[in-house]
């Protein structure tokens, strides 16, 4: 370690690059975020509590969390399945499908939002079939879930895919020759190996869904108490020039996201460490 540190001193530019990084990070990210907390603290604690626990706000927390959770859960299942198919099987058009998985990262959220709304509207391509069996998709929580599933799709696929690729198939073969059936092989060998990656992908998709605005705002219908997500509520407060109220709700959301981000990083750090040891 001491040697390594000495060697590193040979390279130039630490002071410059580190200084620049810290100044830029502070100006663009840290100071603005600090101001948000500052603004939220300009109102009294009682007022803060009242703002963030108002019935309409609580309803939007619940809606945001439960739609995000279900969307991330759907993605955990189908994302794992897609990763499996892309890694283990060869079929025509596989490379195109592999590339298309990233579309939700590349397609602007507003475009996704209006496209999904049009498809799932009562007279839309898919919406009409749901309408005929009495299910409304657009302008309901179900529509929000569909938008959030779209947005979170790449996360699980992209975190599970490399792990599956590196998985040594010897163990599966050994299990197969010892008489294990495919289901047992999956449950006892493959699943434990890819579970950390599934969980990471799930958490990333969940975190992204909590803050998502562009794709949801068109399909949700934005009815207070029913289909109003937290980011929209922040914008509503801003439009009423209630800056402190907007900041208060944003702080609650940020703290929630930060805890989630911290847990993901901690989890990744722990599993990395585990792999290094063994």
């Amino acid at each position, binding site marked *: 370690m001491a040697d390594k540190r000495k060697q590193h001193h040979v390279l130039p530019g630490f002071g410059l690059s580190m200084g620049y990084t810290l100044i830029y990070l502070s100006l663009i990210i840290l100071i603005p975020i600090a101001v948000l907390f500052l603004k939220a603290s300009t109102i009294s604690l009682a007022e803060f509590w009242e703002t963030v626990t108002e019935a309409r706000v609580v309803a939007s927390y619940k809606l945001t969390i439960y739609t995000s959770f279900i969307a991330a859960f759907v993605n955990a299942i189908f994302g794992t399945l897609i990763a499996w198919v892309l890694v283990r099987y060869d079929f025509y058009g596989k490379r195109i499908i592999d590339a298309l998985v990233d579309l939700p990262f590349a397609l602007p959220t507003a475009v996704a939002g209006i*496209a999904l709304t049009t498809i799932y509207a009562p007279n839309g391509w898919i919406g009409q079939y749901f309408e005929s069996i009495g299910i409304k998709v657009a302008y309901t929580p179900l529509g929000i879930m569909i938008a959030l599933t779209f947005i979170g799709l790449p996360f699980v696929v992209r975190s599970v895919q490399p792990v599956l690729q590196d998985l040594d198939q010897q163990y*599966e073969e050994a299990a197969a020759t010892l008489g294990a059936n495919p289901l047992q092989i999956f449950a006892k060998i493959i699943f434990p190996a890819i579970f950390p990656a599934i969980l990471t992908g799930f958490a990333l998709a969940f975190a992204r869904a909590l*803050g998502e605005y*562009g794709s949801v705002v068109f399909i949700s219908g934005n009815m207070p108490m029913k289909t109003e997500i937290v980011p929209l509520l922040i914008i509503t407060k801003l439009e009423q020039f209630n800056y402190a109220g907007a900041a208060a709700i944003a702080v609650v959301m940020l703290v929630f996201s*930060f805890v989630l981000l911290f847990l993901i990083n901690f989890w990744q750090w722990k599993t990395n460490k585990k792999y290094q040891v063994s």
Partner: protein
Amino acid sequence: MIVRNTTLHARNVKTTFRPELLTKWLLIPVATGFLGIFIVVPLIAVFSEALNKGIQLYFAALTEPDALSAIKLTLITAAITIPVNTIFGVFAAWAISKFEFRGKNILITLIDIPFAVSPVIAGLVFVLLFGSQGLFGPILEANNIKIIFGIPGIILATIFVTFPFVVRELLPIMQEQGTEEEQAAITLGANGWQMFFRVTLPNIKWGLLYGVILCNARAMGEFGAVSVVSGHIRGLTNTIPLHVEILYNEYNFSAAFAVASLLAMLALLTLILKSFVEWKTKKH
């Protein structure tokens, strides 16, 4: 059977296992079907809705003055955001990957903050800083400088949301490459910039390009953050995504989808470039 080579082994097991073949032909349609419904159908819908009133109206929607000014503003925003975040990305990746220091993990987590922050909050923080009731609001107003509801606000919000993209792509590559080549360059008498442009940059160019591509896609497509700070002034502070929203909310669906199809083409181009870079780096 007993003396099977382990490398051939996988194939043998696969072909002798009937249930595996069955699952294969069951799972491929499920996976592709899911992707078809969630990804391909929306993509087709954008182009189909854009063209359903005819090609003439399509081009009319793209060439009307408000659309052109939205395109211009989006290009300006990307042209400023990308260099700024790329320079930061290279500096930060250099400091983090080539040197040991305390608090490195904390620094990486801080850089990741924009990924965990809702775009709406990213816009909100700049309103709180520079808006009329914001921290610097009175000073800015006294000097007649407009940041919020103006182009500077849009650029700031875009820089915020695309902040981690380049660093995040460079970090793993530069960490993996270590410091030996750079050390050799320095010992042979190169100065810092020579070392960077002749040794480091050629090694990271594909990763850098990859980061820039992702940064660009997000910069041009950002909606939430920009929506909060822009003020939606037609022809002045509307980016392409905001212009799409206005047209859509006016029930001018064909025009909205026509402009949206530009962004969809950008997304497809991004995916193609991304696959190309991935293919290039795999070859090396």
